[in-house]
């Protein structure tokens, strides 16, 4: 408890006192700055989309890793952690190179008329990339715990494959899926290093909120920086609260208390 207070709560309180010293009217002036609004929208929107994509793709990846024996499974399993382990700047550079108009993936996409580099799409791709391990790693143990017999039981009772997935597997995984979503989202909102290279940071277009904080800091505009930080904090907190409530609800439905 003491450590939690020291490490988490004091810095958070610091941000709020700093932001509070601004005064309400100044605070709102900063808030309605369209550049800041756009950046916040991109950060939260991108994180949300990225986390949603991961919530769809993550279970499939986790499923394959848990249920199938195949050559090179260990390697694939290790690669999942790469976004965790890679210094974010390295990840950012790699992504930027990959999706550049002359990159491996960027070139075919550019031919198809899709521009990734320096667009919100690039931001979303980066945020999806760094969020995937959170969903996969939270799901893996739960999936491993779901015995194949559960599915066999459903099949002998006459359920089709789709009915088994929809009525048995998804509900069983829902609480964990929400946890994975929350983690991926939380990480993506604050992500900085791996995004800025691919995003290009064009104001009003592909500039993310954490970067804007840095910019404000470099301009010695501390009040603006803390104001953005405070807003991000409140929004993140709200979203995590909602996810937690959803989780509680999903758990209660499965008969596990708490």
């Amino acid at each position, binding site marked *: 408890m003491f450590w939690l207070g020291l490490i988490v709560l004091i810095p958070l309180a610091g941000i709020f006192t700093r932001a509070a010293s601004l005064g309400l009217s100044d605070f709102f002036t900063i808030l309605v700055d369209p550049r800041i609004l756009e950046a916040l929208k991109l950060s939260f929107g991108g994180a949300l989309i990225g986390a949603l994509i991961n919530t769809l793709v993550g279970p499939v990846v986790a499923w394959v890793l848990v249920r199938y024996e195949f050559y090179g499974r260990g390697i694939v399993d290790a690669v999942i952690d790469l976004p965790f382990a890679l210094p974010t700047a390295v990840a950012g550079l790699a992504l930027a190179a990959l999706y550049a108009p002359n990159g491996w993936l960027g070139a075919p996409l550019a031919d198809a008329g899709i521009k990734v580099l320096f667009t919100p799409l690039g931001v979303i791709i980066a945020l999806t990339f760094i969020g995937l391990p959170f969903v996969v790693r939270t799901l893996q143990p739960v999936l491993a715990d779901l015995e194949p017999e*559960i599915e066999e039981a459903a099949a*002998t009772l006459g359920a089709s494959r789709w*009915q088994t997935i929809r009525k048995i597997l998804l509900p069983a995984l829902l609480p964990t899926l929400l946890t994975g979503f929350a983690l991926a989202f939380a990480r993506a909102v604050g992500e900085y290093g791996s995004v800025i290279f691919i995003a290009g940071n064009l104001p009003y277009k592909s500039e993310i909120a954490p970067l804007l904080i840095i910019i404000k800091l470099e301009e010695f505009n501390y009040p603006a920086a803390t104001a953005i930080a405070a807003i991000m904090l409140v929004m993140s907190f709200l979203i995590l609260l909602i996810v937690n409530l959803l989780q509680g609800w999903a758990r209660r439905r499965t*008969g596990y208390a708490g």
Partner: protein
Amino acid sequence: MDVTEKSAPIRIDVKDLRKSFGAFAALDGVSFTVQPGELLALLGPSGSGKTTLLRAIAGLSPAEQGTIHFNDEDATTLSLRERRVGFVFQHYALFRHMTVFDNIAFGLRVRPRRERPAESEITQRARRLLEFVQLGGLEKRFPAQLSGGQRQRVALARALAIEPNLLLLDEPFGALDAKVRKELRAWLKDVHRETGLTTLFVTHDQEEALELADRVVIMRNGRIEQIGTPSEVYEEPATPFVCEFLGNVSKFDCTIRDGEAEVAGSLFPVGEENGLNGPGVAYVRPHEFEIVIDEHGEGLPATVKSVRPFGPTVSVELVLAGRDGPIEIAVPRELIGLGDVQPHRVVHIRATAARIFAAG
């Protein structure tokens, strides 16, 4: 109580079933018939293929070769849904996020719309099944809130809800403690009687198989060693393996001559004509010995190691000269004077019956 629509129970014909996992033959040519309404035990040590056989009949993991018929219908061409097999798993395999009630109703609710009963009928049927498995009032519980025995009852009710053609149980009591196991055993017998379903269960517990089943299939290394009623397999085991597997026996090397087995100078009576001659093995169960107190009497000399005078029979451990490990015999309490059978005393033992097989 009427829990399943009483259509006539079905006959199962299994012919030459084969399946292997890599180089390991899990089923190596298995053929047998289950009579309509029969309660049949598949008994064997682990790795004998009994569970593989059960899963093949259920359609969960099809065999590579051979046929399975339900009455005259080739079951191997049927989908799992069409087979309508009530399957009960060792670890229950209940749906944890569903209440007891929803678990039981699941098989009815996933039916295609035109075959699905009305929700009111589903409710009624699930209630009736809950009563039948003696869990009335627990329908709103989740599996995590039930004991192991209760969970297995739910699993059985869930399997019965689909009005199965036959009931298959894979080590249904394997995960339960001894007391609950005994209770559920008696209860399964009742369930079988009341449903009249053709029922197969897998077990590695010979006592369970002999107590419950109409007939027992004893398996070893993917093959059937013997099929018979409990008394047949117990009294007239077809192979040494069956003899050793079905409970406590003592094994003696013997010489078979003119239908009698000679063990170290003592003759073991062998019930029937067997046409055997030469070296063999004789198996004697604990209650087929008698003790002769006279030190110069006939029979095999043996030194008493321990006496456990509990219950209707007295269990005596004896050490025989030239034999590794003691043998255990059980004699009725009234037939021995306990004063004469004391540790370290030398007595003689005689077999009153034995099963013999040619050696090798």
